[in-house]
């Protein structure tokens, strides 16, 4: 029932506005600035949003432009500061609350899931809770056990909060604008490695609303769904696969709740194979959900094979030898996709192509 559906076509690719390229960081900053200029109810806060490093630059210049009342750093009090966002939202503000690590959301879930997600319902529709929580997933360079988690599935599990995980600067800007204007709470998942990505970003304000996934590479042999940063790895994997003649169709769900199951299921109906790659654990994760939903749609009609990839089912280690094995990457994704296509363990792993290497994250921590 929750399955939101785009009966029509999936989201078209953004026009390659070659004239204007921006980084993910700049896209986030720009959306924030435009939304704050557009609506004086928007406020931006969180630990260190007003410090010199400005959350990797995503809040740069905003304290000066909008003043210390609308842009402010906070005490180290995730629980109360999340509760405060709810109070602000009840009073008509539109807070954006920033967390430099998603791991710290575990201190905030009581307010987010017991209060924010439930308020509209338990108060019989008498209140709106327009608030955005930006939470970053860390990776690489010894981030380790407590600075690396992708916990978005918790927010997909409990009804009442939307979840978005853009992977391009274009979507970063458009979904953040949509999230800020949304009258419901929204978790905005930001992967630290995406911050380096560059891409076309129109100057004017626009929104990328929930409802539609995007087919980022059309193909016919296997459907690869890449969530958040794993979209980047999936795109690279598609190139490795092209080298061996496998045509992967890559999909970016963008919004995880509501999730556009139709676009994914329609693709799987064509390819007969589904590989879901998440930047999180798979056990009770978004990958399990996507697999289940596609199964619900296609069972009895179109047979398909699938695989889930994500964090290894263990705690994130710091040392690089183990850390590398903890995460899926373009090559392991390509290998899994090819095995799905061939219906057997081929043992193939593409040789690394220099142009398709992952960025190693190396601070600022």
């Amino acid at each position, binding site marked *: *029932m*929750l399955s*939101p*559906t785009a*009966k029509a076509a999936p989201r078209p690719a953004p026009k390659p506005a070659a004239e204007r390229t921006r980084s993910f960081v700049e896209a986030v900053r720009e959306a924030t600035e435009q939304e704050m200029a557009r609506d004086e109810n928007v*406020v931006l806060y969180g630990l260190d949003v007003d410090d010199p490093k400005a959350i990797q630059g995503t809040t740069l210049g905003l304290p000066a432009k909008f003043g210390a*009342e*609308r842009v402010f750093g*906070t*005490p180290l*009090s995730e*629980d*109360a*500061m*999340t*509760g*405060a*966002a*709810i*109070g*602000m*939202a*009840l*009073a*008509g*503000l539109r*807070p954006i609350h920033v967390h430099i690590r998603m791991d710290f959301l575990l201190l905030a879930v*009581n*307010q987010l899931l*017991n*209060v924010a997600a439930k*308020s*509209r*319902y*338990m*108060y*019989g*529709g*008498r*209140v*709106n809770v327009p608030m955005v929580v930006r939470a970053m997933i860390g990776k690489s360079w010894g981030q380790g056990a407590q600075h690396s988690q992708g916990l978005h599935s918790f927010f997909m599990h409990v*009804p*009442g909060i*939307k979840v978005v995980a853009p992977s391009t600067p274009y979507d970063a800007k458009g979904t953040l604008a949509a999230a800020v204007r*949304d*009258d*419901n709470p929204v978790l905005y998942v930001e992967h630290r490695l995406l911050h380096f990505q560059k891409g076309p970003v129109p100057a004017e304000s626009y929104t990328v609303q*929930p*409802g539609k996934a995007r087919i980022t590479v059309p193909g016919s042999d296997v459907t690869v769904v890449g969530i958040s940063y794993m979209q980047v790895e999936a795109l690279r994997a598609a190139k490795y696969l092209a080298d061996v003649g496998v045509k992967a169709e890559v999909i970016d769900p963008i919004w995880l709740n*509501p999730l556009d199951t139709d676009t994914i299921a329609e693709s799987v109906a064509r390819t007969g194979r589904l590989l879901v790659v998440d930047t999180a654990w798979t056990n009770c994760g978004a990958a399990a959900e996507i697999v289940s939903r596609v199964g619900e749609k296609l069972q009895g009609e179109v047979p398909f094979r699938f695989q889930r990839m994500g964090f290894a089912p263990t705690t994130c280690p710091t040392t690089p030898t183990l850390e590398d094995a903890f995460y899926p990457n373009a090559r392991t994704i390509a290998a899994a996709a090819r095995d799905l296509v061939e219906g057997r363990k081929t043992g193939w792993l593409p040789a690394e192509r220099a142009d398709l290497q992952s960025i190693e994250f190396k601070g600022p921590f």
Partner: protein
Amino acid sequence: MHARLYRSLYRIRRVEEEIARVYASDKIKSPVHLSIGQEAVSVGVCDALRPDDVVFGTYRGHAMYLAKGGDMAAMVAELYGKVGGCTRGKGGSMHLIDTECGVMGTSAVVGTTIANAAGYAYAMKVRRSDAVVASFFGDGATEEGVFAETLNFAVLKKLPVLFVCENNGFAIHTAQAKRQGLTDICARARAYGMPAERIDGNDVLTLRDRAEAAIERMRGGEGPQFIEATTYRWREHVGPGQDFHLGYREQADCDAAQARDAVRAIAEMLDPKERALIESAVELEVREAFQFAEASAFPTTDDLMTDIFTEEADALANR
């Protein structure tokens, strides 16, 4: 003022007595945490608030809801699980709201609304409004981390929040001294930089005065204020009955509290005729509230899947 206070006190007392009476019939589809004996705290504070000021409270929220002007019929209908309820049957006794008169919500998770109140106050500040927020919570809530975090934030930002600790000496069946190394709740508030005072929660007149003074200071930009009001819960923690047989507290303590009952104390200050007029008006309101609740319909299952998100989003989710 005495008449107004009495009306408010009597109104809460009577509707809760009626709730307790009706409870056995199973018409009330919800656990109830009664405020009987504690009414004066809500009444004293709320009487000093303006209509555009707001309050946040707890699952023990009938008194606060009514004292701030909440619709009694909508509250009783809510307890009955009816569409006429203040949350249309979705929230029950623990999630009362009446945004029109500034009741901004009550929560079943201890401590949560303390932070919500501070956030609301932050919005008032950003808006240059002189409206203030009152946050009601129990002595138990002061042990939750969110309490300390919020106090610090409120002082840091000089927020117009009046923190009101209704100290009834117990969290469920556990006495304060079994839960707090040092039982001086005001000391905690002061340690975070906030003026705090402990007031007899049965003394509705003093409470009202001190609340008014605190609120004036807040409107003048002096930042958050703290009141610890000592009080006593006459009934069991949850449910309509008594619980002295459990042995965790003494009937004698209740007798002492009842001897200082604010409802009776204020009643005795009134002219008997005026008192009678108030009482009969309240009796009528109570009767009508229960009639309204009885007459109101139960929601239909169509309502199950609405109000999760705003309408548009619910439509998308259910498509």
